[in-house]
């Protein structure tokens, strides 16, 4: 703690008033100097501002020569009161009492500020952790742990719902080295996981549970992640050199972990829900595909090509999700096209072709009944639009066509070209690539075609059969 600020205390109006009244009623004069000899109150003429050095010990004050009374803060003299012995003695008692009260207030204020810091940190944490991505939450928690708790390393382990093992899903630290999955019950983390109770281990080496690995740690604080009474993982914070984690650290750490636990639990539920949803959507798409045995696997391939293109284009997570769903469902409108037309193996008449051309609009209609899928509709409705405006159903051109649809258009055409049909054999890979290049800028967005070629170069485009 910094040295007590005597100057501040003695420059306060109420202090000055009190000292003035005291000296007046005692009919005396005192002067107060700081430890470094600066006059802070009264008139010091005739008083030595500081004690002279001891004749035998230069550098040490000569207390025998002391003409003043010490003002003590934290066992140290922070100033002196000089004056008539008895009266100055009374005044120094008052000053010392004020100093003591002031210091207590200060200690309290420091503690309050510490708590307040924690509080604002928690506020901030709760506000920012509004994501449904477990990894993001975990990384955010680790960042906070490293900032708020004295720690060199921090890691988050979650129980794998299938294997039952504790797996590190996020970690940070100078000496971090990914840990092997742990069985609940083994190691300190595994034991905390089983017991569901947070622990401080300030001397890991002497703890029999400690598994000595390549990461040498000395002190550890470990808390369970609890979701609805069930422990789903643990959070570790550790130091390389021995540290003395306190009960306060543990309490704060646990509060932080509890907040994160809610978020992680919600995110997991959300992710499971999403997985189930995608599965349902996939099943739906496959059901439709079954009507037309010649297009088997088309949906899956279109999705794979689309995702490969998207990776080259570097589109955001949100768009990527949209693209995945839209590519799976792009042909869902075919459910509205009659078997007679859909399964016809000979050349289609103009009328029949017009019916086929309705499937993007049928797709839009079907999806409009499902809440939360509005944002994938453009990808489905416009996947037969052409970049030059000659496509259907609306004749949109260029950027008017949703990017998702422009991507699906390339993926869809490429798969159609390379697939065998009852009335024709599929094109070879290279010929199909040539076709894409030829139609780049007219039928297709050249940016998307370039991305497809780039993906091909990076071995992300693969045909299932041996056409390659």
């Amino acid at each position: 703690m910094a040295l007590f600020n005597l100057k501040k205390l003695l420059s306060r109006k109420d202090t000055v008033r009190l000292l003035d009244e005291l000296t007046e009623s005692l009919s005396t004069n005192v002067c107060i100097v700081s430890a470094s000899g600066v006059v802070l109150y009264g008139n010091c003429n005739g008083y030595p501002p500081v004690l002279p050095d001891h004749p035998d010990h230069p550098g040490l004050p000569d207390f025998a020569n002391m003409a003043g009374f010490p003002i003590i803060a934290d066992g140290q003299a922070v100033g002196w009161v000089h004056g008539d012995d008895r009266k100055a003695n009374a005044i120094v008692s008052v000053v010392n009492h004020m100093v003591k009260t002031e210091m207590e207030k200060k200690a309290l204020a420091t503690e309050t500020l510490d708590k307040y810091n924690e509080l604002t940190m928690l506020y901030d944490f709760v506000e920012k952790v509004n994501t449904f991505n477990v990894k993001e939450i975990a990384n955010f928690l680790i960042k906070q742990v490293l900032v708020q708790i004295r720690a060199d390393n921090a890691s988050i382990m979650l129980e794998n719902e299938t294997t039952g093992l504790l797996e590190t899903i996020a970690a940070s630290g100078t000496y971090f080295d990914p840990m092997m999955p742990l069985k609940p019950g083994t190691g300190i983390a595994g034991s905390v996981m089983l017991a569901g109770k947070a622990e401080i281990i300030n001397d890991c080496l002497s703890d029999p549970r400690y598994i000595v690995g390549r990461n040498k740690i000395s002190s550890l604080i470990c808390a369970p992640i609890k979701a609805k009474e069930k422990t789903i993982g643990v959070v570790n914070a550790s130091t390389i050199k021995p540290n003395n984690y306190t009960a306060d650290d543990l309490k704060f750490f646990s509060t932080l972990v509890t907040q994160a636990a809610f978020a992680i639990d919600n995110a997991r539920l959300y992710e499971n829900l999403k997985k189930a949803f995608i599965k349902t959507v996939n099943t739906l798409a496959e059901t439709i595909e079954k009507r037309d045995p010649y297009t088997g696997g088309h949906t899956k391939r279109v999705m794979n090509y689309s995702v490969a293109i998207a990776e080259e284009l570097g589109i955001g997570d949100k768009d990527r999700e949209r693209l995945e769903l839209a590519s799976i469902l792009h042909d869902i409108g075919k459910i509205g096209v009659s078997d007679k037309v859909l399964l016809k193996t000979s050349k289609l008449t103009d009328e029949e072709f017009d019916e086929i051309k309705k499937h993007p609009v049928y797709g839009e209609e079907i999806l409009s009944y499902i809440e939360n899928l509005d944002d994938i509709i453009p990808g489905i409705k416009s996947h037969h639009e052409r970049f030059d405006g000659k496509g259907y159903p609306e004749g949109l051109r260029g950027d008017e066509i949703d990017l998702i649809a422009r991507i699906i258009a390339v993926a869809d055409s490429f798969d159609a070209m390379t697939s065998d049909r009852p009335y024709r054999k599929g094109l070879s890979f290279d010929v199909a690539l040539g076709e894409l290049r030829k139609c780049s800028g007219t039928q297709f967005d050249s940016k998307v075609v370039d991305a497809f070629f780039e993906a091909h170069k990076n071995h992300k485009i693969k045909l299932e059969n041996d056409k390659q």
Partner: protein
Amino acid sequence: MPTILIVDDEQHIRLLIEQTLEELEDDGVEILTADNGAEALEIIKEARPELVFLDVMMPKMNGFDVCNTVKNDLGMKSIYIILLTAKGQEFDKEKGRECGSDLYITKPFSPKELRNKAKEILGLQ
């Protein structure tokens, strides 16, 4: 010597801000406190602080009134006034603008941000 005035009817908030700004005292900044609007006005007139942290919700004379008196009635426009408002309470931005305040900060505030803001305003960076 630059002066900061902290006005809040809650003692712990005054203490907290004072403690937060303590290190500025090493740069010669003087920190004054007041626990009500009337006292705040007295101090402002006398000490002319560069910066005032002013709680909005205070009994009798609230922060808007104090701010309005300082900025508009007394014409002390150069005094930087930061209004402190409680989170969750709807802050009337219109009133904040009308009274001429320079900034508002919601409680709980981040001590670090508050300190940096004060340093910035006093040019102590």
